[in-house]
């Protein structure tokens, strides 16, 4: 579902977080609409932005988060079973990803890092496509234009410039869509992210900088990147920013809508720091016990984004057996489909490595491809030859 289809809602001008000054010192003001215990607390500035969220929408957000967590767990299992080469879990970041992902319009465009598989789910990614890259069958799992989302970016921070450039294009086209870019706390140290803010501010283009501060960049705690709140970084570029409880799906959705709305109205870029936690390892290749205190994980477990929505639903009497059953079935089906897609994914063909390097013939490469196909043919059985080859 896209809750925004139910209406963009909220005030359309002069909304909150409207200028650099508004949120310049907002660091301390963590935007929260639902407490960890599931209590809906009022927030005069941001309530209007989620006022049209129905009970049904809430259940739907819960479903999304549960499904995405299930995707994450299943992919992790697939990796452990040797079906995937690697997987970067998003465990704990479901609210940040679903809350923001569900605030987007279809014609908005997402430029993310490698961890935003929850956002990809919101964009409607094919379940097999999510894991294509992580199985090693492709460098990109999907055609970006089919879901208006670029494929995972591994170079830390690089995608923030792509989003900014895309937004320059939107501005030139006179369109009212928005480019949104996701990146981590660690990424804020890269020159590219800072340059992206320079360009975005200078040209006042419709881009949203969505920083998931999950407290860690592999083994490095966020305080190594910055002594002050990351949201404050943006104000130094003249970009308004918000600091939102990244484990509160409603707050994230509200903040994202504020930012999107500003961008659509020509108000330029916004920076959102979603304060969340990476509950799993950096990737399945990582061992977080080497660098972090287990107590920290416990503290954050108490703020789990999914339990929070569950509690909210419970308080509202919406957390029915039926809902749970429905979500369970859905998650199971998704996991099954993904697993099946994974294990039945056809292996690529050897000569595929030469495809799409260029869009037109290239004399160097064509010759190499010709030679390599002769080489493979010289074995009679290309498949056999291939398995003898390289990387040994």
């Amino acid at each position: 579902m896209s809750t925004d289809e139910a209406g963009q809602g909220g005030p359309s001008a002069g909304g909150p977080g409207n200028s650099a000054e508004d949120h310049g010192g907002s660091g301390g003001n963590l935007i929260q609409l639902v407490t960890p215990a599931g209590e809906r607390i009022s927030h005069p500035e941001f309530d209007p932005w989620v006022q049209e969220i129905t009970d049904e929408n809430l259940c739907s957000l819960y479903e999304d988060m549960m499904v995405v967590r299930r995707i994450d767990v299943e992919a992790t299992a697939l990796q452990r079973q040797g079906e995937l080469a690697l997987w970067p879990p998003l465990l704990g970041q479901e609210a940040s990803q679903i809350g923001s992902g569900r605030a987007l319009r279809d014609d908005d465009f997402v430029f993310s890092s490698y961890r935003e598989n929850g956002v990809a789910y919101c964009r409607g990614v094919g379940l097999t496509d999510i894991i294509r890259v992580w199985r090693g069958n492709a460098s990109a799992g999907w055609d970006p234009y089919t879901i208006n989302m670029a494929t995972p970016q591994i170079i830390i921070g690089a995608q923030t410039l792509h989003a900014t450039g895309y937004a320059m294009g939107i501005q030139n086209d006179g369109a009212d869509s928005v480019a949104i870019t996701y990146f981590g706390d660690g990424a804020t140290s890269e020159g590219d992210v800072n340059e992206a803010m320079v360009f975005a501010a200078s040209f006042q283009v419709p881009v949203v900088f969505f920083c998931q501060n999950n407290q860690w960049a592999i083994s490095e705690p966020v305080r190594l990147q910055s002594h002050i709140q990351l949201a404050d970084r943006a104000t130094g570029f003249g970009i308004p920013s918000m600091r939102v409880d990244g484990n509160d799906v409603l707050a994230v959705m509200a903040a994202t809508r504020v930012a999107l709305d500003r961008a659509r109205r020509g108000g330029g870029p916004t920076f959102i720091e979603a304060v969340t936690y990476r509950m799993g390892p950096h990737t399945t290749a990582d061992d977080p016990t080497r660098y972090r205190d287990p107590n920290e994980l416990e503290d954050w477990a108490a703020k789990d984004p999914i339990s929070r929505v569950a509690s909210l639903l419970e308080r509202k009497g919406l957390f029915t057996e039926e809902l749970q059953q429905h979500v369970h079935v859905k998650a199971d089906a998704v996991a099954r489909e993904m697993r099946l897609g994974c294990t039945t994914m056809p292996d690529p063909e050897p000569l595929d490595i030469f495809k799409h390097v260029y869009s037109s013939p290239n004399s160097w490469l064509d010759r190499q491809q010709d030679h390599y196909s002769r080489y493979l043919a010289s074995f009679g059985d290309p498949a056999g030859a291939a398995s003898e080859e390289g990387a040994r």
Partner: protein
Amino acid sequence: MTQMTFARAINAGLRKSLENDPKVILLGEDIGTLGGVFRVTDGLQKDFGKHRVVDTPLAESAIMGTAVGLAYRGYRPVVEIQFDGFIYPAFDQIVSQVAKLHYRTQGAVKMPITVRVPFGGGIGSPEHHSESPEAYFTHTSGLRVVTVSNPQDAHTVIQQAISCDDPVLYFEPKRRYHDKGEVDESIDPGSAIPMDKARVLTEGTDVTLVAYGPLVKTARDAATAATDEGISIEVIDLRSLAPVDYATVEASVRKTGRLVVTHEAGQSGGVGAEVAASITERCFYHLEAAPVRVTGFDIPYPYSKLEMHHVPGLDRILDGVDRALGRPNSLSGLEG
């Protein structure tokens, strides 16, 4: 046919591309009001507006990275790097994004980005203003790398580069910006000689001399000088450095049996190494002597008072020709 300078010829080519395709957009430092430090974009912002000819903030990685985003959106960005030595901050975006995105996305996302780089020395500039970084890019799969050596090519090839769906590094020999030449603006870039083809400039029988960019003029002068000594040099303007049009070079070397390659960039790992190695592979049994490289030295580009010692000149090229021909030369008597 009009007489125009090299810089003007590029300017006219850019203008045509801007006129013909509304998706063409120019990005760079000082390219708008100022018209670029070399005036190559002179007048274009005035005529096409600030959204087509964009003065950007001072950050090369961002220029390249936003060009990637614009390409995602369907634009054809033409980026100006002010001087060769300032392309390195953009290196990551070029190598990891521009060069790889089409491959990464299995052709879904095109990167029709043209990167204009004034390159090479000989203009008396301080450090970082005289680099010849082309080999970094010829070794980067996914890019096309072209150079131009005369106003007509400059005019035609810039349009070909812009309309190419692949990313193109377009190297402009900055010390030739003021050279004049005849330019036929009516030539259709689509039916002109493709940008990835080399061109034989003067036919010859004794030795093949391969040059590109700023040294093409020097190579021609060398060929002229050599005729006095009865040496017949076939001069080839390589034009495309990635891919190199080996068919043309090979055909020449099969005829002459000897090859000299010249460039300003340092010798080790330069384009000359690639050309020498490939031509040796392709026509070893037609070679009468080892291919000779006459290049810049393996040193940082020196300060201007000594730059003429680094940049190959006519005499050094002729010395290389002598070496290829087994005539007396500066290394006579040395082994190997």
